[in-house]
């Protein structure tokens, strides 16, 4: 049996290794973006296929998520700025009930399309593991970048990535 101090040293080293691979806010990702069809608040069907050929950012958000509310106005500004260059932002809302979403968007409207995912099918397909999550997809329909969470200043990161993909 190892001495207690050796055991502790080895466990501490292992813990440091595990801790250092902890959570990065954003990472390059790859693979085709799963197609989806959801409905808008007005009840119209829409999906990823409607924006073929454009750079798309899919932002997963909820009315009960504070950081999601914080980034919405900035996402709106970004959408308006880059839309003419062939960029679209789709807000996929994960609330279980539509009324709260309607109420929030009436008070704080956004110009980008908002689709409802109450059954969480799309969230599952995109392996959403943090709220909010933003998935950036290139013109060819490949996922290029996933940003998890939101802290003020992250919008600069989004813009860098979008500009890069628009130029491709």
């Amino acid at each position, binding site marked *: 049996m190892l001495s207690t101090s050796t055991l502790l040293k080895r466990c501490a080293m292992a813990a440091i290794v595990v801790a250092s691979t*902890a*959570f990065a806010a954003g990472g390059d990702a790859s693979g085709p973006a799963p197609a989806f069809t959801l409905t808008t608040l007005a009840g119209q069907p829409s999906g990823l296929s409607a924006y073929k050929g454009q750079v798309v950012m899919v932002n997963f958000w909820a009315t009960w998520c*504070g950081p999601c509310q914080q980034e919405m106005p900035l996402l709106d500004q970004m959408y308006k700025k880059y839309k003419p260059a062939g960029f679209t932002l789709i807000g996929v809302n994960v609330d279980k009930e539509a009324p709260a979403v309607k109420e929030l968007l009436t008070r704080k409207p956004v110009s980008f399309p908002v689709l409802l995912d109450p059954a969480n099918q799309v969230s599952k397909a995109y392996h959403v593991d943090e709220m909010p999550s933003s998935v950036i997809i290139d013109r060819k329909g490949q996922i290029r970048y996933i940003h998890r969470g939101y802290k003020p200043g992250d919008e600069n990161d989004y813009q860098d990535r979008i500009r890069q993909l628009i130029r491709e």
Partner: protein
Amino acid sequence: MTQRHIFARAAVIAALLLVRSTSADVLPDDRADVFYSKYSGGGMDITGYSATARAKITENFAVEANYFIDKVSGASIDVLSQASVIKDERRQKSGTIEYLRDKTTYTASYTSSVERDYISDTASFGLSQDMFGDLTTVTLGFSESHNTVGENNGTANDPNVAWIGHAISRAYSGGVSQILTKNFIAGVNLQVITDAGYLANPYRSIRYLDPSNPKGYSLGDQVYPDTHTSTAVQVQGKYYLPYRAAVTALYRYYNDTWGMVGNTYELDYTHPIRNRWIFEGRVRYYKQNAASFYSDLFPYADSQNFVARDQNLAAQDNTTVGGKVTYAFLPDGWKIFKRGTVTFDVSRIRFNYLDFRNIKYYGVPQYTPGTEPLYNFNANVFQVFLSVYF
């Protein structure tokens, strides 16, 4: 004066407690509260006023400050030598800083409590770590309190305080909270507190049978051990009911080196109405046995090494029934305010002592010492506070 000490010491303990309600994903919203409270029971009236404010300096760094004043008035039920009218004031200030980094929140705080015959300073440190997909939160805390105990040998209006002792208290805490389902969160807390030094209340005395005294008993000084270690474990769960309400249940087990064992049971129900109202009801039952060196009436002087007659160490139980109503007068915000609420909270507590007798009956001819009726009383606690969120 007697009750004051206990209140002051309780405030110190409250400052030592586990960091309340933390969630290490984002720092809580900025908030300011003004608070008023009134406790009346057992012949005492205690009014409290408080103001608290917290603000984020950056997304990861927040500060909080609190100022609290307690004013006591009333007749002290358990000072036998003179039924003195108490008037006293306690002032408490505290400051806290919080730092969030990834999934960890670090907290440090300092509290200072001052009144005429009791001074206490407490420093606390805490850590809260979210892990396992934010389903598990682990907390650790350490707190140390330095207290100076005095005795007022004068009167309320003409005090003469002698400083008679010091005590140091250290609290070590740990907790784990686990999300079990979409509707259910549970947690367990453990806290070990050790005190050393002057641990008694100087205003209380023991009594012992004394045939040479016409009353049948005489008073004497309490003698307390100079150390005390306690362990408390609390398990709790909170469940979301499908029609939008929450029910909470908790159980706490306590024991210590003075031979006391205490059990606490509490049930809470929270019922909101849309975005405007939150109603809450609570029921709590507490029971403890007496400390090993406690007695309401010792057989003779110097019968034991340690002797106490402080009601807090007596076998007792209490039942609380309470309710709380929160009304959001600003449910969706206005200008810089995100939300504004006003809350009323009332509790009624029935205290029953199982081996502490009612001083009102001491010397009443039909009751020989040790046969006086047991003490019990009702207390009403009222709180009202205004909260604004930024």
